């Protein structure tokens, strides 16, 4: 309970969260058949039904706080995406931030009342993360004072936007603006796509669903093709950049501002990494306490599989990771809110670092969580593969976050760009601040290189603070190595881009090491904030496990840089195993602290009461193949075959 409060940031929030949870879960309108048994069209229909209800009930209950709306929505949809996500999460906010007052008058209230349902159409078939490559055009025609929108190639068809396929009647479309014969880059336009009333696509608009995906069954991710589709000049979002009636283009003041939104969304993904991994851990650890298998001691009853070292070695480091990411997510969110105050006052100085940090952490946490969820599933053996385990669903819902809002490798390289820049600054004698300040030490070391080896013995593997130093040294060394390799390539007189590309594997490694250091550092810093001794003790074990396990998985980095000796590595490996045994008695309590309701967890294996096998049987009986005792195929195919042979 206390731990739950720490994760939630105080006792008040879990209380209110539980109220909202009860409000949703006790509402018969939100009940439906298990989604695993429905077809995609049916799942879409259920989601639309619930979303419509949700919007009405939110207003009935007078819930308006963004966080409470988020909880409500997440209980209604059980943490799953839904067709109105883009309307609520992108269309409305974009109107608020980028529309002129006049545009807000025209669009905001209808959109708030859902007469207009909108989406945000940026990604195209041929281009995603690389925005400058987008090909949709909006050409201004001063004669009629309209923009003419076109999808000039197959690759320029808008592809993937959520809610675009079937749900939305408007879209904010990002297109290359052409006026007075010149391309002015990407701008946003409000485009009606379906007829109000009939919901039929408008002439000049081709729109539909992009077909089945790995997950996101309830989301109608869509395509949109426009042929000489005209919209009035006033439909360009013109709070910043403007096109005047005669076609004159007025430039925006600063383009750094769009960073803010990206930082915000990426910080949400860090939180989502923590949540998704926590859910998978909850399922796998509870199930491992219920499942018995084989024998540890001859003649004794079969032990819980959670007692096997190999099973603990799979799951407990992931549990520690889930905790670590919770704290990282909270940190980024707080930092964002702190800095966004400065931004509103025009102070953008901290933005580049925060931007670099969230890009890297978004990639680092989503990659780790993605792999971790799969490990949890594998740790549940065959039953993990059944959809009743709930883990397949968590995985397919989570895995696209490695791609959306910035492809992870590209994100890592953005962080690397910042790291290299900081390194260059340090090399030229300047000091750098913030999370990269460790690079300052590098210049000091260069003066006394013989002392590098001397630091080796100072790493104490039982002390989180000392491990932070070890991670710091590793990050410093990898950043330095990447920067030097980059310089070497440049010295070969390669072009800047070519040299960058030839160093990019090193650069990604450097970014990963940097992010890893940040996570260890933040987790360690969190420990001193915990006042309850028992809770602090268990969190310290988790923190140590996280840090030591990370070393044992990357021993090469620590050995090669001379940060740790082989003997210390052996100790680290040994200590990891000792920690597994220490954490074992608390394992179930530690996942209970995540406080997921059974309905939210959506897993037969992860039930709070542990009655796994009975409920698997009950669940299976409802499967669509079991609707009839003798399947139709018997009469159609099997029987005729038997008769013939």
């Amino acid at each position, binding site marked *: 309970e206390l731990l739950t409060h720490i994760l939630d940031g105080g006792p008040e929030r879990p209380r209110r969260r539980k109220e909202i949870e009860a409000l949703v879960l006790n509402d018969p309108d939100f009940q439906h058949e298990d989604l695993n048994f429905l077809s995609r*069209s049916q799942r879409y229909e259920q989601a639309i039904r619930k979303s419509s209800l949700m919007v009405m009930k939110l207003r009935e209950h007078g819930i308006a706080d963004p966080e409470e709306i988020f909880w409500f929505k997440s209980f209604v949809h059980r943490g799953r995406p839904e067709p109105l996500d883009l309307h609520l999460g992108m269309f409305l906010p974009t109107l608020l931030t980028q529309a002129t007052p006049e545009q807000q008058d025209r669009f905001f209230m209808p959109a708030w009342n859902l007469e207009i349902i909108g989406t945000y159409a940026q990604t195209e078939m041929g281009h995603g993360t690389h925005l400058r490559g987008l090909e949709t055009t909006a050409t201004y025609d001063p004669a009629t004072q309209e923009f003419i929108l076109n999808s000039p190639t197959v690759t320029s068809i808008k592809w993937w936007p959520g809610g675009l396929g079937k749900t939305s009647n408007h879209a904010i479309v990002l297109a290359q603006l052409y006026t007075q014969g010149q391309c002015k880059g990407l701008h946003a336009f409000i485009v009606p796509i379906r007829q109000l009333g009939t919901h039929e696509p408008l002439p000049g608009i081709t729109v539909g669903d992009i077909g089945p995906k790995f997950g996101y069954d309830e989301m109608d991710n869509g395509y949109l093709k426009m042929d000489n589709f005209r919209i009035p000049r006033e439909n360009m979002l013109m709070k910043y950049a403007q096109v005047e009636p005669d076609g004159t283009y007025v430039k925006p003041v600063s383009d750094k501002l769009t960073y803010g939104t990206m930082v915000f969304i990426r910080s949400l993904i860090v939180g989502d990494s923590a949540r998704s991994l926590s859910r998978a851990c909850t399922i796998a650890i509870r199930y491992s306490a219920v499942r018995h298998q084989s024998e540890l001691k001859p003649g004794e009853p*079969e032990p819980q599989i959670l007692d096997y070292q190999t099973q603990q070695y799979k799951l407990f480091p992931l549990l520690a990771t889930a905790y670590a990411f919770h704290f990282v997510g909270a940190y980024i969110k707080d930092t964002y809110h702190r800095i966004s105050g400065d931004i509103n006052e025009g102070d953008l100085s901290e933005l580049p670092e925060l931007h670099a940090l969230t890009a890297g952490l978004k990639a680092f946490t989503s990659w780790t969580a993605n792999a971790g969820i*799969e490990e949890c599933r594998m740790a549940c053996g065959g039953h993990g593969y059944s959809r009743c385990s709930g883990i397949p669903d968590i995985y397919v819902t989570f895995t*696209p976050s490695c791609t959306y809002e910035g492809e992870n490798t590209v994100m890592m390289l953005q962080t690397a760009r910042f790291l290299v820049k900081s390194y260059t600054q340090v090399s030229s004698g300047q000091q750098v601040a913030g999370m990269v300040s460790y690079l300052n030490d590098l210049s000091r070391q260069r003066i006394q290189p013989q002392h590098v080896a001397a630091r080796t013995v100072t790493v104490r593997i039982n002390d989180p603070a000392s491990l932070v130093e070890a991670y710091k040294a590793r990050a410093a060394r990898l950043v330095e190595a990447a920067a030097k390799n980059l310089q070497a390539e440049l010295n070969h007189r390669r072009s800047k881009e070519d040299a960058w590309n030839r160093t990019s594997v090193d650069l990604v490694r450097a970014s990963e090491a940097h992010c890893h250091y940040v996570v260890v550092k933040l987790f360690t810093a969190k420990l001193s904030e915990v006042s309850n001794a028992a809770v602090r003790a268990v969190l310290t074990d988790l923190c140590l496990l996280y840090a030591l396990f990370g070393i044992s998985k990357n*021993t090469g980095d620590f050995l090669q840089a001379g940060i740790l000796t082989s003997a210390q590595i052996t100790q680290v490996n040994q200590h990891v195993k000792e920690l597994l045994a220490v954490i074992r008695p608390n394992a179930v309590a530690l996942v209970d602290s995540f406080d997921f309701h059974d309905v939210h967890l959506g897993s037969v294996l992860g039930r709070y009461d542990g009655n796994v096998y009975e409920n698997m049987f009950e669940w299976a009986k409802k499967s669509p193949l079991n609707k009839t005792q003798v*399947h139709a195929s018997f009469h159609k195919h099997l029987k005729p075959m038997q008769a013939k042979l």
Partner: protein
Amino acid sequence: SVNPDLASERQTASFCVEKLTALLDGGAEKTRIRRAVVEAIESDPVFSRENQYFQTQNERYEAAVRKAVHLQKKMHEMGWTEDGPEYKYIYRALSGDVAFLLHRVFMRSISVLGSDKQVAKWIPLATQHQLIGSYAQTELGHGTYLQGLETTAVFDIATQEFILNTPKISAMKWWPGDMGRSATHTVVFAQLYIHGKCYGIHPFIVQIRSLQDHSLCPGITAGDIGPKMNFEHIDNGYLMLKNVRIPRDNMLSKFCEVRPDGTYVRQGSQKINYFTMTTVRISLIADEVVIPLMKACTIAIRYSAVRRQSKLKPGEQEAKILDYQTQQEKLLPQLAAAYAFHFINDYLQELFDRGYREIQRKNFDMLPELHALSSGFKAVITHHSTAAVEICLRACGGHGYSLLSGLPSLYTKILASCIYEGENTILLLQTARFLIKCFMAASAGQPVPPSVTYLAAVKPGKCPAKNKLDFLSPDIYTEAYQHVAVRLISSTAAKLQDLIQSGVKKYDAWNQCTVQLVQAAKAHCHYIAVKNFAETVENLETKAGIQKIMKHLCDLFALHGIFSNTGAFLHDGYVSAAQMDMVTASYLDLLAVIRKDAVPLVDAFDFTDKNLNSALGSYDGQVYQRLYEWAQKSPTNKMSPAYERYLKPLLHNTLSKL
């Protein structure tokens, strides 16, 4: 017409693609037969997988049953037989999308475990599909650990019958394929009781559905276990038995028999039993693991040659994503692994054929080694390939996430292979047990099987490489792998002994070392895989550029393994920090070299477009057009009732009242 971005890739191939295909098939004649089978299957509309991604579980199941029935006809028509050269290509041509796969396991288990009389009775019935069989081993509560199964078979002398029961819920049979809806019979594994004494697990033939109307037999509860990550076409089932009586003759009794008076007789050696298990593990590597991996590589690499993103040089066209080092670093090692696993599979197959001949001569000497190799490689290859397919999926960005890319289905299918036929961690521990035993024997100067003789010749020392080119020498890297394997096995063995000598019970010591044991077993398999790849390359013909490109792939496979596991090689200073930088340099250089041949290297796998069933991976590279066309066929693009029912009232202002 072929997308020019893909066409240009093919013009610069450094080797002859057709020759490489023949090498993979084991000769040009086999390539010809395979293509003929694929052609016959793909030209038949019944076998089409065109709409597969749009179908529900019920539709997929029905299609699979229809295909299975039609296949019987087709084989007859084409004159294909089960022991003919065409047979093994049928499954590949169908991409496994067919029902009654367990029927064959049913037949094999009767052939192997049944008496001559039982074989004579059941096999003809099964061959003519008078009955449909399944194989019911796994239970809700137990999988890989067979002794833990809880189903019981009690012998009743009075009626000369066995009485089968599912005593509790965790004893329910769960997962067997074809059992949920199709099967009429199944081989049930149950604990045999005679006069109240338990004799362990034995196989029994049990009829579960009527041969007339397919209804369940008395005492039987059976059905489908519900949706899974994949295998929607297979009706994996559950089975509950309540006082089901079967005649004494239904216990498969080649090795164990219960006489009419209740005497239990064991005859012959059960070792052959293990051999069946090991052969199944090896046989799944090619069809269920290596082929899906090759498909995933084909899709991801072709797509990466078509997809352009961002500019590498200012003012130029956007670059193919395959030209980015990070993309190469994701995909090319997976391609190298696909080749490595193909060759290790050849090696294992050969070893098993030899083992089979020995066993028929009643010589069981090779069994422990075969068992260890099959367990270890099943685990290592399935694990590695599963991760590799996922890397391919994610390397295709957003479009990889679409089912139409084909990658999600390849992934969800291949990942099941990490669990079935023995959970990977447990299998690795079995291999480790063998390795520890052999290490002890070798240390004591006793003879050990050929694959582990290296344990006897431990040469302490340092890696002799002086510059990065030295790491392109197979001797250098093979020895490094060998060194790591020996180090991990010997240090774990030493730790085990220490623990035992300090008074820790043997089983406790074992559990305390399992994490290390797993690592040791992996290192052993990795070493054998590298060694085998290097030896295979050495014996290839030098013509047509094949040997040269295979050597590059072998180097890449080996160096990627070192690069991604540097700690193991640095640990005792065998490879120095400076040498590790050379490894990295050589490794990254290789990516650029193999990049040039990447598309021809996947073309050589020779998958037809229908077989790949991917909008991203087709031969002509017309990715975007195909994606757009296929999406329009999606059932979600028919007008959904959701609009009338929910959206319309929502849009039409029901809310303005609020």
